[in-house]
């Protein structure tokens, strides 16, 4: 497909044909009263060499570290083949696949992606991806609103321990939709939703309920009970899960008696580097009965005029270029390259590999947590089940511990108080399958040294990366 720029002759001919002399005249109809953004604060342009120097200086600020931090973005091993394949020109430069006759490769990858995701989540349909986990959750709520268009309620239940970043995104995306958020009752002792108190809620105003599994504290919620409660009360149930956990945990399509209506996830753990926070990708799946309310692209398999199989974008009557103001999808894109990576990741691991991955994450984090809890003054804060993240509370010398780790090349975890002020002296720690036994031993050694001995010994705790 050729993209040939207009020559001055072309532009002149077009201007003449619509009867104006200057290109700027096209914009005359924009009222002068509309404010014009000032671009003064944007620095001057750089040439290629200057830009490379600048980018290299920025890149040098990054420290290589052994990562025990998670909280929404996870350090997993990415098989080398994934980005070797995903960055092939055919994937890297391919444009939007609306023109099926020149996009069969891209469309087939998207179709395979959707098929694998549906199987993984235990639901009927998946779309071709959204921007990230947080926007996927916002879209799931908008979708529930459309499914429940005859419902009088304007409120959606969210877990108290939803990721704070996700809460911000929901507020940003849904603020103009006049959707209110109500936090579910929270059991402070257990660190999870208090499902026993759900029946005390006035449900008349509630059209959907969101669950996160695991929650922001890494703990496993009683999602079966909440899903059943939602179904009994004609409330749409939405799951937001960590896909790495699905090798061990029950898929959202099997929660409760009938499964959830909609499930979404942050797809970053599947083959996408943490890379300072993005770009990531969002997963969303649903029951077939809700597919016409699903946003985004959906690829379908069909046959051409010669009865040969092929792939096309389907159910396009949902989308804004056809339904205009009444569209149920106003997202006409997807995360193309990260989808290729996630598809390759799933195909390389397979069901058995995913199970091994989940188990290794589970075992590493549990081993680390149990060993930490043997150190005096250190404890696992909550007693419930957790997957690959855990809250460790330090009775004393927390600042000393953090200062100690600052001098090592270990990221010890998320300081929880920065997000949840009531959670003093706590780290949210994650040890994925990528953390070796030696790295975990090193972590434990650092904690012991920082807490038990004179804390000026950081240099003895350097860890090769």
């Amino acid at each position, binding site marked *: 497909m050729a993209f040939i720029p207009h020559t001055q002759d072309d532009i002149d001919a077009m201007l003449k044909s619509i009867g104006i002399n200057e290109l700027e005249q096209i914009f005359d109809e924009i009222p002068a009263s509309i404010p014009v953004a000032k671009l003064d604060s944007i620095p001057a342009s750089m040439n290629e060499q200057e830009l490379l120097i600048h980018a290299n200086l920025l890149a040098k600020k990054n420290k290589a570290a052994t990562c025990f931090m998670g909280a929404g973005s996870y350090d997993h091993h990415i098989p080398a083949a994934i980005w070797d394949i995903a960055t092939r020109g055919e994937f890297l430069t391919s444009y939007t696949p609306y023109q099926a006759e020149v996009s069969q490769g891209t469309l087939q990858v998207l179709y395979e992606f959707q098929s694998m995701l549906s199987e993984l989540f235990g639901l009927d349909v998946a779309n071709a991806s959204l921007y990230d986990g947080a926007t996927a959750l916002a879209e799931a709520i908008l979708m529930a609103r459309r499914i429940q268009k005859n419902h009088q309620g304007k409120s959606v239940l969210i877990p108290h321990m939803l990721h704070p970043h996700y809460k911000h995104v929901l507020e940003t995306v849904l603020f103009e939709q006049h959707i209110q958020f109500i936090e579910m009752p929270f059991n402070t002792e257990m660190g999870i939703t208090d499902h026993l108190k759900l029946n005390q809620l006035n449900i008349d105003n509630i059209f959907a309920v969101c669950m996160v599994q695991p929650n922001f504290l890494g703990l496993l919620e009683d999602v079966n009970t909440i899903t059943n409660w939602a179904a009994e009360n004609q409330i749409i149930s939405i799951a937001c899960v960590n896909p790495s956990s699905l090798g061990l945990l029950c898929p959202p399509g099997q929660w409760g008696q009938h499964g959830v209506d909609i499930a979404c996830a942050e797809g970053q753990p599947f083959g996408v580097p943490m890379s300072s926070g993005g770009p990531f990708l969002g997963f969303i799946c649903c029951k077939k009965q809700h597919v*016409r309310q699903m946003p985004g692209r959906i690829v379908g398999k069909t046959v051409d005029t010669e009865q040969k199989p092929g792939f096309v974008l389907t159910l396009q009557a949902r989308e804004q270029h*056809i339904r205009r103001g009444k569209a149920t999808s106003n997202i006409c894109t997807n995360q193309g390259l990260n989808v290729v990576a996630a598809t390759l990741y799933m195909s390389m691991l397979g069901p058995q590999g995913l199970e091994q991955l989940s188990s290794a994450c589970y075992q590493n984090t549990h081993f680390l947590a149990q060993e930490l809890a043997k150190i005096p003054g250190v404890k696992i804060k909550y007693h419930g089940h957790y997957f690959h993240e855990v809250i460790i509370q330090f009775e004393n010398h927390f600042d000393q511990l953090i200062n100690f780790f600052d001098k090592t090349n270990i990221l010890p975890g998320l300081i929880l108080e920065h997000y949840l002020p009531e959670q003093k002296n706590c780290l949210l720690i994650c040890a994925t399958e990528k953390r070796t036994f030696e790295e975990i031993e090193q972590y434990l050694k650092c904690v012991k040294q920082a807490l038990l001995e004179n804390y000026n010994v950081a240099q003895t705790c350097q860890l090769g990366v």
Partner: protein
Amino acid sequence: MTNTNKNLRFTKSHEWVNTDVSPMTIGITDHAQHLLGDIVFIELPKLHTHVEAGQEIGVLESVKAAADYYAPVSGTITEINEVVLSQPELINQDPYHTGWICKITPDQSASTDSLLSEESYQHHIAE
């Protein structure tokens, strides 16, 4: 127009309604199905809900477009044609008979005065 029944009344938004029976049967016109092309999906209104004349009650989706359809009279949805859920092509093939969409029991106060006669509707679509 073919297949029409002189008892039918019409809306400018291309629904027909049989006002001679109770509950009143409702569908979309032959002209509407022709404009839409091959219909592949229909969303039916919910049974037992009350609707106002002119209110959107469902969606039709064809291979090239999607369109809402509206209640011609105020009343309660008392029957829906579940056959068209699995065979939406009936709306193309036989819009005035097997391709009917739903039945509405009109309110006592419901007015049919603003509905068009077949002649007026033909005039409307010819414009």
